[in-house]
């Protein structure tokens, strides 16, 4: 098994996020799941939340699941793998690999070395581990739990104030968070039963654990976010503290101005006409987005906060930093 990397990187310039501005109450929790439909910008929001918490002095780790490396990519960092790697002051990142989590779990469970070696060498074990539905998700959540402990189980484990999880997309996300309960119900005896119960208690602990849903101002993402919030509350039982409406266009033009621009878009020449048309496109999108924002507000219980669309070619750490500034 690979060891934990505690390697320090040279610090980037300190984030330009005011250190004394109040952070969202969401970040006062110990564990936050960021979820939403695929392609809505979950990772960017998770990283932005991480930057914001770190700037406020909280030791924060952003976790990717299913061996994804989206967060490290945002930081333009090499793949972090199953290691806690420092990205900036107070901000770490890890990509949780279920197989590594399983090994770590077994290592922590079985104190007898001979027995663990036997288990890892045995084909039947890896077969069973792969075949047992939900076991991968369970050990992944187990690792998240372990990271959130003040008394870390792994040797020399660092204490974190906040663990932010870039959770799987809708659909998979609900199943993921429900795994501990499902498992506790199926495995009625043995250590997994009580551990699964413990994980479920962590997920449903409204004081320490929360969820943020990321949505986009379009029909389908709004529908899915509303359904997701309902399922997270009623089926999983996790506290949904925020819904972030991501990618909101600015309202640059009033209706009256749009009327004047429409004339220019018909008449006008070359660049003037193209610019007027682009302005009308933006006006029309911004307006339909406001309608979607209103729908989202009507259909969700948690406070809906907006994040601006960033007119930037690629969303890197600077974009996340800009989002972080406006997070509330």
């Amino acid at each position: 098994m690979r060891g934990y990397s505690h390697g320090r990187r040279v610090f980037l310039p300190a984030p330009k996020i005011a250190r004394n501005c109040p952070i969202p109450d969401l970040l006062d929790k110990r564990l936050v799941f960021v979820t939403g439909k695929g392609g809505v910008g979950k990772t960017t929001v998770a990283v932005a939340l991480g930057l914001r918490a770190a700037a406020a002095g909280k030791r924060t780790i952003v976790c990717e699941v299913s061996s994804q490396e989206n967060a490290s990519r945002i930081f333009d960092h090499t793949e972090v793998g199953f290691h806690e790697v420092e990205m900036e002051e107070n901000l770490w990142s890890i990509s949780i690999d279920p197989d590594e989590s399983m090994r770590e779990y077994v290592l922590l469970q079985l104190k007898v070395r001979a027995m663990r070696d036997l288990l890892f060498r045995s084909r039947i074990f890896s077969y069973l581990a792969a075949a047992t539905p939900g076991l991968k998700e369970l050990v992944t959540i187990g690792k998240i739990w372990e990271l959130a402990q003040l008394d870390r189980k792994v040797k020399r484990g660092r204490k974190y104030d906040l663990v932010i999880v870039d959770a799987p997309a809708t659909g998979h996300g609900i199943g993921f968070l429900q795994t501990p309960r499902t498992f506790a119900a199926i495995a009625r005896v043995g250590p997994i039963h009580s551990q699964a119960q413990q994980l479920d208690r962590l997920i449903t602990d409204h004081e320490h654990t929360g969820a943020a849903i990321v949505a986009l101002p379009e029909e389908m993402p709004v529908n899915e976010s509303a359904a997701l919030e309902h399922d997270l509350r009623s089926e999983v039982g996790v506290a949904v503290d925020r819904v972030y409406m991501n990618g909101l266009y600015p309202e640059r033009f009033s209706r009256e101005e749009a009327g004047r621009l429409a004339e220019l878009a018909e008449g006008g020449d070359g660049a003037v006409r193209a610019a007027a048309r682009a302005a009308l496109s933006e006006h029309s999108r911004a307006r339909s987005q406001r309608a979607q924002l209103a729908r989202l507000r009507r259909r969700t219980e948690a406070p809906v906060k907006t994040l601006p669309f960033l007119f930037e070619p690629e969303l890197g750490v600077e974009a996340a930093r800009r989002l972080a500034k406006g997070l509330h």
Partner: protein
Amino acid sequence: MSSVGDILAGKGICICAGSGGVGKTTVSAAIAAGMAARGLKVCVLTIDPAKRLADSLGLHELGNEAKRMDPELFERHGIEMKGELWAMVLDAKATFDELVARQAPDEESRDRVLGNRIYQQISNALAGSQEYMAMEKLFELHTEGRFDLLVLDTPPTRNALDFLDAPRRLTQFIEGRSLRVFMRPTGLAARVAGRGASVALSVFKRIVGFDLIADLAEFLNAFSGMVDGFQARAKRVNSLLADRRTCFLVVCGPQGEPIDEAVYFHRKLVEAKLPFGGVIVNKVHYPAGRLRGDRVDLLAALAERLGDGNLARRVAENFADYQALAERDARNIERLAIELRTKGVIRVPYLDEDVHDLAGLAEINRYLFASGEERLAIAAGRA
């Protein structure tokens, strides 16, 4: 530049693949509608259509069965249906249940499987089972031979490739001959197979809890009679996917990450010797026209025409932002074309309104089925 119509000429199956959030469902529906308009009998299999799209097509009352769409709905939006458009919303769990019912030797084993907790979990949640069931339904409809063309909208998995691997994973799980041996309550087979394995099994039991193992054993026993049927079917599904009348279309967005995924996906298709047909980039910012001179000139011209310096500044800013996105998209698409060694990248513009109804679908349809020059002309007219 070819159109979707050219790519799909003579094909029996079109599989639209790509990661979530790129508008795959809408594109799939638009492709099916366009091919039906050209005189084919087409069925689109979809997972989770936008509610308003589903409402406007009358899809929400659909069970796990194909239903014909009312051609008048499309004619109202300028698509004349020379053929027939059918649609169905896939229900992975129901398809799995049907499959079990078909493969089970008798009613008792069927009920034992359907009632088993492990089965219920697998059919709902095992990674790839939904994808596999999409393939299964595709295979079933193909075998029935009722349609000229089947268009499959693949499930939005985080890893868009899961479904390629799903049949293998599923049969591997169900097959598990060696596993079943250990599951027998006598333990005799375990002794025969060697002490190491049985110790491993008992350690595993201790970790996960005995009940789970018992359920697993029951499931595998109940399933034992069906394994061969499943495997044979999976093999036929695989050869159908590789058939020359099957065509994979990759759907992606113009941002860096979806483009990377499309490149990766294309490579996987080639490695798996599956027939790649083309790539559709959705929500592209088309360049809104050449900017002659510099921004200062534009600003001055706008200010003069509008008689409002403040508004002119905002219009110019917005134009610059929009141009930057259009340039990014053009760069990314160029990279995609080079990586895929194809000129056949079909672009669908980012429309002013979010597409979730028939009007939007008809709009997308125009781009998919226009020739390259026509597409540019439409875009220039719009932009």
